C-alpha cells in the first residue's frame, strides 16, 4: 500500500462513518422513511476492496450498502437525498436506502433481497469476459446471505465459467438477529470455497490492509482468467440490523465488538509512514464537512414530482 492509497482509504472510511452516524441521527428525527441498515464498523471491507477497483469494475451490494456506494464513488449528496426520498437523489427518490445505485460508476445497486447479488455479479463478470475487457466484478454479501441457495448457484456458475468475479463476505456475526455460528453448518464461509474449486480466504475484516492484500491477489487471479475467489472478512456492525433494532442478540463476547477499524487504520497508517497525524486530522474534518454539506443538500432538495411515479418503468 502506498501513501496515496492510504489517504484515499482513510478519507472514504471517515466519509462512510460520518455518513452513517448522520443517517442514524436523521432517522431518529423521523426524516427518513422506511428501513435503514447502517454500515458503520465494516468500513475496512468496502474501502480495502474498492481501493483496488477502477470506475469500470462492477460491484453488487447488499441492504447494508451505503459504505459500498460511497467507496465506489457514488455522489454523496445524491445518496443522502435518495435516502431521504428526495428529487435529487441518485434514483430520483424512487429507490431509497436499500436501492442506492449508480450504474455509470459500476455500482449495480444496494439490494433489498438477501443473496440477490451473487448471480448479478456473475452476470456482470460474464459481460466483462464476453466483451474481452480487463475488469472484475465484486459481489459483497453478508454472512446471512451465505446460507441462501443463491450462494451455491452463483459461486458454482462463476467457477465453471471461470468468471472474473470476487465474492466478498462481510461476516458481521449476525444475519438479522441470528448468530452466524447458529445459522451455518460450517464454521466459516471461506471453508466452503474449495467445494467450488476456488480459493477461500478468511481475513481480519477490521484490518484494511488485510482486506486490501487479499483483494489484490483475487483481482490478479480473476484478470489472469483463473476464475473467482471467495474472501471472508471477519467484521462487526456497530449499529443493529436496522435502525430501531434493540440488538438483544449482541453479547459482551462478540468477536470484534471492542474494535473500530478507523482508529486502527489511523494508527497503522501513521506508524507505517503512509499518513501523518496532521493529514489524518484534516481528512476527518473534511469528511465531516462533506457529510454536513450532503445533509444540507438533501434537506434542501424538493420531494420528487408526482408524475415521476409513472416514469422509468421501461426504457
Amino acid at each position, binding site marked *: 500500500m502506498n501513501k496515496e492509497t492510504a489517504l484515499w482509504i482513510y478519507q472514504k472510511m471517515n466519509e462512510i462513518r460520518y455518513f452513517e452516524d448522520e443517517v442514524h441521527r436523521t432517522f431518529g428525527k423521523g426524516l427518513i422513511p422506511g428501513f435503514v441498515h447502517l454500515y458503520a464498523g465494516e468500513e475496512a471491507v468496502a474501502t480495502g476492496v474498492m481501493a483496488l477497483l477502477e470506475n469500470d469494475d462492477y460491484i453488487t451490494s447488499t441492504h447494508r450498502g451505503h459504505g459500498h456506494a460511497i467507496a465506489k464513488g457514488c455522489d454523496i449528496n445524491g445518496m443522502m437525498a435518495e435516502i431521504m426520498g428526495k428529487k435529487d*437523489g441518485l434514483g*430520483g427518490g424512487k429507490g431509497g436506502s436499500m436501492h442506492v*445505485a449508480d450504474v455509470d460508476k459500476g455500482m449495480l445497486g444496494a439490494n*433489498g433481497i438477501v443473496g440477490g447479488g451473487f448471480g448479478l455479479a456473475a452476470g*456482470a*463478470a460474464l459481460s466483462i469476459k464476453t466483451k474481452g475487457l480487463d475488469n472484475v466484478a465484486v459481489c459483497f454479501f453478508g454472512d446471512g446471505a451465505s446460507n441462501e441457495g*443463491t450462494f451455491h*448457484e452463483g459461486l458454482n*456458475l462463476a467457477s465453471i465459467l471461470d468468471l472474473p468475479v470476487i465474492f466478498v463476505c462481510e461476516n458481521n456475526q449476525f444475519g438479522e438477529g441470528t448468530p452466524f455460528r447458529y445459522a451455518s453448518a460450517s464454521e466459516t464461509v471461506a471453508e466452503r470455497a474449495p467445494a467450488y474449486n476456488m480459493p477461500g480466504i478468511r481475513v481480519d475484516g477490521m484490518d484494511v490492509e488485510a482486506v486490501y492484500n487479499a483483494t489484490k491477489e483475487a483481482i490478479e487471479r480473476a484478470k489472469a482468467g483463473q476464475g473467482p475467489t471467495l474472501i471472508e472478512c471477519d467484521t462487526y456492525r456497530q449499529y443493529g440490523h436496522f435502525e430501531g433494532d434493540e440488538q438483544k442478540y449482541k453479547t459482551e463476547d462478540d468477536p470484534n465488538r471492542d474494535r473500530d477499524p478507523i482508529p486502527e487504520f489511523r494508527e497503522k497508517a501513521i506508524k507505517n509512514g503512509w499518513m501523518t497525524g496532521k493529514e489524518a486530522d484534516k481528512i476527518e474534518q473534511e469528511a465531516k464537512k462533506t457529510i454536513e454539506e450532503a445533509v444540507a443538500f438533501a434537506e434542501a432538495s424538493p420531494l420528487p414530482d408526482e408524475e415521476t411515479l409513472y416514469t422509468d418503468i421501461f*426504457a
Partner: protein
Amino acid sequence: MTNRNITFMTAINEAMAQAMRKDENVILIGTDVAGGAEVDHLVHDDGRYDDAFGGVFGLSKGLVTEFGRERVIDTPIAEHGYFSAAVGAAATGLRPIAELMFNDFVGFALDPILNQGAKMRYMFGGKAKIPLTVRTVHGAGAGAAAQHSQTLYGMFGAIPGVKVVVPSNPYDAKGLMLAAIEEDNLVVFSEDKMLYGMKGDVPEDYYTIEIGKANVVRSGEELTIVAIGKMVQVAEEVANILAKDDISTEVIDLRTVAPWDQETVLESVKKTGRLIVIDESNPHNNTATDIASVVADQAFDYLDGPIKTVCAPNTPVPFATNLEQAYIPNAAKVLKVAEELIVDLKKEPMI
C-alpha cells in the same frame, strides 16, 4: 426474399440466429441450450461444436455450431443462478436471451425477474436498462402433467417492468422474437409447446412485429373474440362455425399480454357489443379477467351482454389424456358461451 413454409420452432431459431449475427452482444444462456459441453466427440476437427440437445425441444439446434460456446452458454441446472447472471449481464451491456425450459420452473428463477430485472430501472431513477429476453414454454396438451404444462404468462404480466409476448403462429413468432431481442427491456417470450410443429409462411428477411399491438386476424361486426397464443386457432374455428349462421365474428390475436392493446380491444367491443376472451390460464387473476375488467370499466355502455371468459378450470394440469383434453379450452366450450351472447342475433338454433 422468399417466404418459406417453416415451423414455429424453426422460426424462433431463425430469429435468434439473425439477432446473433446482427449484434455480437446477443447471447443465449440456459440449461442445455446446446448440451454436451466439454464432450470431446461433439467437437469438430475445425473447432466447431455440435449440440447434444439444442434446447430440450431442439429449438436452438445449430446455434452453438455457428456462434460457439462463448455465446451459446450451457448452464448448470440452476435457474436462479443463471437468470440472475442474465440480468447482471443485461445491466452491463450484453443482450441475453435466457431460456426457462418450462414456465413452471419459474419458482426457482423468479427473484431475478421480479425483484431485480423488472425493478432496477425504476429504483435507479431510469439509470439502468435491462435488454433481456426470457424465452419460456407454457401450455397443456403434451401429457407433460402438472409441473411442465401450466400457462403462466399472466403471472409475468402482472409484474410492472415486464413485457410479455405470446405468439400464435410461425410468422409472429419470428417477428415478435426479433422485436423482443431489440427491446431495451425485460421481455418474457412465452411459447406454447403445442405450436412448435405448426407450419406457416415466414419471410427469410429480418423483420419485427410491434410489441404491445394486437392483431385483428378476422374482421367482424357482431361478436369479438380475443384469444392468446394457441387459442387463436380455437377462436378462428368458432368464428367459422358461427359464420354458417351468419354471425359475424371479429377475432383478435392479442400477441402481447403485457401491456395488452387496450385500444384495439376496446374499439372492437364498441363495434360488436359482445366479447369473449379465450385464455388457457387458470380462470382467476389472469389476462382474461384483466381484459374483462378493463372492458367493463371502459366500454360498459356499448355491451349487449355479459363479458365471457373461457379459461382452463381452477385445477392443476392433469396427466391422463382425456382429463388433459377436458382441461384445455376448445371450440365447443367457446360455442357454449357464445350461444348465450348471440341468442338475440340468431334465427335458428345452432347446435
